[in-house]
């Protein structure tokens, strides 16, 4: 059904970005006032506070930039997907090895393994995050929420457009996976009609 449907386009959820900034700001102020600028704070603690503040400042800057961004943050269509937080260049489906939904610390993520990651380099911060993500068994590109579309809508778009993940070698497992996919297709067809 994939090629027939409209492209999936998602913009940043500005309100959510403002909420994140408002939630982090008192923490930044408290660390700044009680550790970094406090005259009696030990030197080691000041250094640690500085590192924490740099990480928080990067997070706030990213959220503010997304809150002001007017172009889409994710586009999924029949040619591939463009995750502008990773790169402004679209990544074609031919470059995707596999993709998987993952849950980590109560949050859902869509993680994608690329055939040749060097052909699709990400922005510096995303590369840094990607390095950490791979240590947690995530793929090269990981898409989280924070958009004006729900995670389930995004998953449906990937299911429709992206190549299906390869079947496992075990024939019984492969049969079960195929029947689960067929059930999902039927359920969505019934829901759509």
């Amino acid at each position: 059904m994939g090629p027939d449907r409209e492209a999936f386009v998602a913009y940043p959820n500005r309100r959510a970005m403002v909420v994140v900034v408002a939630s982090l700001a008192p923490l930044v102020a408290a660390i700044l006032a009680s550790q970094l600028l406090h005259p009696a704070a030990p030197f080691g603690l000041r250094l640690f506070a500085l590192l924490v503040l740099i990480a928080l400042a990067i997070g706030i800057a990213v959220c503010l930039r997304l809150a002001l961004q007017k172009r889409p943050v994710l586009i999924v269509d029949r040619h591939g997907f463009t995750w502008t937080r990773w790169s402004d260049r679209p990544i074609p489906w031919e470059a995707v090895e596999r993709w998987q939904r993952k849950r980590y610390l109560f949050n859902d993520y869509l993680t994608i393994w690329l055939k040749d990651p060097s052909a699709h380099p990400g922005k510096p911060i995303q590369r840094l995050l990607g390095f950490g993500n791979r240590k947690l068994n995530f793929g090269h590109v990981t898409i989280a929420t924070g958009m004006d579309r729900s995670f389930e809508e995004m998953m449906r778009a990937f299911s429709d457009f992206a190549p299906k993940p390869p079947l496992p070698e075990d024939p019984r497992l492969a049969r079960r996976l195929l029947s689960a996919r067929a059930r999902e297709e039927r359920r969505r067809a019934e829901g759509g009609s």
Partner: protein
Amino acid sequence: MTERDLLDWRGIGTGYLLMLCYGAAFAMIALAPPGLDRWEQREAFVLGLMLLYGGWALVKRPARRVVEWWAEGRRTRHEGLKNAAVVVMCLLSAVLCIVAFPLASRFSW
């Protein structure tokens, strides 16, 4: 209430929960400056946080019903209410940011 509304309210609710935690921590510092040897104060803080979370868990379902009743079928009301909640949160956040500096002087490292 749509799936989008639920997601938005969940995010806003988490933000308010954090404000409650910050508020509780700041109130504790205002009442008694923390010292490294005050174990009973930390226990009281953790207990206070648990009570706040319990209170939040009790309040959020009736609050959702009130929102659904007031804004049912009126998208502008719904969006306006979410925006108002975020604006109030930003104001609370700004107050906490300002208060953090005089409170920090009560710290005894």
